[in-house]
C-alpha cells in the first residue's frame, strides 16, 4: 500500500525526462501556429499558454527540438549591451533566467561565472567606459577594471606586455552566466505541452498563404491547416520563411562556428571575450573549453566547419593562455545565424496583420530566449507590441532608427 502511494506521489511530482510526442495528425485549424521549435518558438508557446491561457496552439519544427541554433550555441548569458533598449531587454531576460529552472522543472545548469571583455587599446577602453555607464544607468552590474583587478579575477590570463595585443583593462560583468542550451528547449517544450500545446517535430512548413479573411493556410508534408495567427521563430531560415508571405527582412544569413576541447580539470572560472582578437572562451562544468569567434564573412547554406576558423581562434587563444598549448580540440560545428545590420533583434508585429516575427538573433539570441518568449507571447496575445521590444521592429530600417548594438554584440555573443 505504502509502495503504491509512493509510486503515485512520484508520478505527480516527477518531471518526466521524456519529450512530448508529435501528435499523429495536424488539425484542420489552430488559433496560433508557431513555426520553429527552437528555444524562442517554444518559449513563446509556453508563455502564450501560461500567461494568456491561449489554447489551440501548434508548434511546427522541421527537424527536432532545439536542433537549430539553440543546441549549437555556446550558451553565454549576459546583459552588458551598449544601447539602453538592448540593456533593458537583456536585463529582464537575466531576471527570468534566475528562476527558470524551477519554473520549467528541469536542471538548466545555470552557472554564474562573471563575464570579462578585454580591451587591447585605449579606444576599446573608452567604448567600455561608455558601455559600463549605460549598463549602470539601466541597473546592470558592469564596470571597467584595470590590469591588477583583472589579474585578481583571472590569474590564468597572460597579462604580458610582450604580445601582439597587450591587454589594457577589461569590462567586468559579474552576473555573466552560462546554461545548458538543449535543456532550455526541452524544458519549454515539456512545459508548453503540459498546458496543451501541440508540438509537431519533423514538420517543415513549406508554404504559407495569407487568405482574404486574414487567416493563413499553412502547408507541410504532413498536412495542411488554417491558422488565425502565425509566429515565425526560425533564426537562420528567417528570410526564406518570410518570403513565403511576401515579407522582406534585412538579415544577413551567415554561419557561426565554435569548437570545444577535450575535458580537463577545472581551470578557468570567468567567461573571457576579446572583440579585437575575435574570440571568446570559457570552461564547462564537464571541463571542456568552449571556444568561439566571429561569424563567417559571407553566406553559405551549410553548417560545415573550416580550418581557417580553427587556426585563427586557436592562434589568438594561445596569446591569452599560452599554457593551453597542449590542449586538444575535440569537436567543431556551426549554426546558420540571422544577423541584422545593427546587431539588435528584429521582432514583433509586421505589415501583415496577425503575422509576427521573432528573428534577428544572430550570434546573441540564446540569452534572450526567456524574455523574447514572454514579450512575443504578450504581443501575439494582445496584438499590442510589448514596450520592451518596441524599438526592435522592422520599421526601424525605414525610419532611420537603427540601434547600433554592434560594439557590444559582434563577438561577445
Amino acid at each position, binding site marked *: 500500500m505504502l509502495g503504491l502511494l509512493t509510486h503515485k506521489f512520484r508520478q505527480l511530482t516527477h518531471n518526466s525526462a521524456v519529450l512530448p510526442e508529435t501528435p499523429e495528425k495536424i488539425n484542420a485549424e489552430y488559433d496560433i501556429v508557431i513555426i520553429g521549435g527552437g528555444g524562442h518558438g517554444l518559449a513563446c508557446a509556453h508563455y502564450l499558454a501560461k500567461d494568456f491561457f491561449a489554447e489551440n496552439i501548434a508548434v511546427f519544427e522541421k527537424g527536432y527540438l532545439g536542433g537549430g541554433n539553440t543546441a549549437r550555441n555556446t550558451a553565454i548569458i549576459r546583459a552588458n549591451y551598449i544601447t539602453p533598449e538592448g540593456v533593458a531587454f537583456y536585463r529582464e531576460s537575466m531576471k527570468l533566467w534566475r528562476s527558470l529552472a524551477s519554473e520549467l522543472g528541469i536542471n538548466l545548469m545555470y552557472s554564474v561565472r562573471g563575464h570579462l571583455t578585454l580591451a587591447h587599446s585605449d579606444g576599446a577602453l573608452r567604448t567600455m567606459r561608455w558601455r559600463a555607464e549605460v549598463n549602470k544607468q539601466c541597473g546592470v552590474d558592469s564596470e571597467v577594471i584595470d590590469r591588477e583587478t583583472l589579474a585578481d579575477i583571472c590569474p590564468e590570463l597572460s597579462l604580458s606586455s610582450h604580445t601582439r595585443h597587450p591587454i589594457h583593462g577589461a569590462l567586468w560583468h559579474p552576473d555573466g552566466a552560462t546554461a545548458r542550451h538543449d535543456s532550455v528547449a526541452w524544458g519549454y517544450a515539456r512545459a508548453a505541452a503540459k498546458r496543451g500545446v501541440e508540438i509537431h517535430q519533423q514538420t517543415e512548413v513549406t508554404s504559407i498563404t495569407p487568405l482574404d479573411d486574414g487567416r493563413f493556410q499553412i502547408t507541410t508534408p504532413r498536412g495542411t491547416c488554417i491558422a488565425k495567427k502565425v509566429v515565425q521563430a526560425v533564426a*537562420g*531560415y528567417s*528570410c*526564406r520563411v518570410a518570403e513565403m508571405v511576401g515579407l*522582406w*527582412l*534585412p*538579415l*544577413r*544569413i*551567415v554561419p557561426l562556428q565554435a569548437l570545444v576541447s577535450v575535458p580537463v580539470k577545472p581551470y578557468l572560472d570567468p567567461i573571457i571575450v576579446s572583440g579585437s582578437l575575435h574570440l571568446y572562451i570559457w570552461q564547462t562544468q564537464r571541463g571542456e573549453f568552449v571556444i568561439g569567434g566571429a561569424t563567417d*564573412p*559571407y*553566406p*553559405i*547554406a*551549410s553548417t*560545415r566547419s573550416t580550418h581557417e576558423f580553427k587556426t585563427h581562434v586557436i592562434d589568438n587563444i594561445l596569446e591569452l593562455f599560452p599554457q593551453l598549448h597542449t590542449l586538444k580540440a575535440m569537436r567543431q560545428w556551426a549554426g*546558420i545565424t*540571422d*544577423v541584422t*545590420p*545593427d546587431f539588435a533583434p528584429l521582432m514583433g508585429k509586421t505589415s501583415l496583420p496577425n503575422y509576427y516575427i521573432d528573428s534577428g538573433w544572430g550570434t546573441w539570441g540564446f540569452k534572450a530566449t526567456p524574455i523574447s518568449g514572454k514579450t512575443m507571447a504578450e504581443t501575439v496575445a494582445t496584438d499590442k507590441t510589448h514596450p520592451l521590444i518596441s524599438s526592435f521592429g522592422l520599421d526601424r*530600417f*525605414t525610419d*532611420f532608427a*537603427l540601434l547600433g548594438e554592434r560594439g557590444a554584440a559582434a563577438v561577445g555573443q
Partner: protein
Amino acid sequence: MRHVNCELNGLRDAGEFAYRGITTDADPTDSLESLSPAEQAKNIWTWSGYDGIHDDSCEEWWFHNPSGKWSKNERARETE
C-alpha cells in the same frame, strides 16, 4: 583556400574581399548623392542575406579591399 574573382586582379584569396549581398539588392556602386534618403538607407543598411540554395542563378557583390574594385561573382553557395 577559397578564391574570389576580382575584375581587376583575377582570382585572389577570399580574405581580401568584403561580401555585399546579391546583385538584385541595392547597387553599392550607385552614387549616394543621386539617391533619396530612403534609397540611401536601403543601399547602406538593408541589403538582404538571401540564405540558402536557390534555383535561380544568383550573382553577388564582392568588394576587393586592396584595389577598391567592385566585382559581380557567382558562387556555389552550398559548398563555398
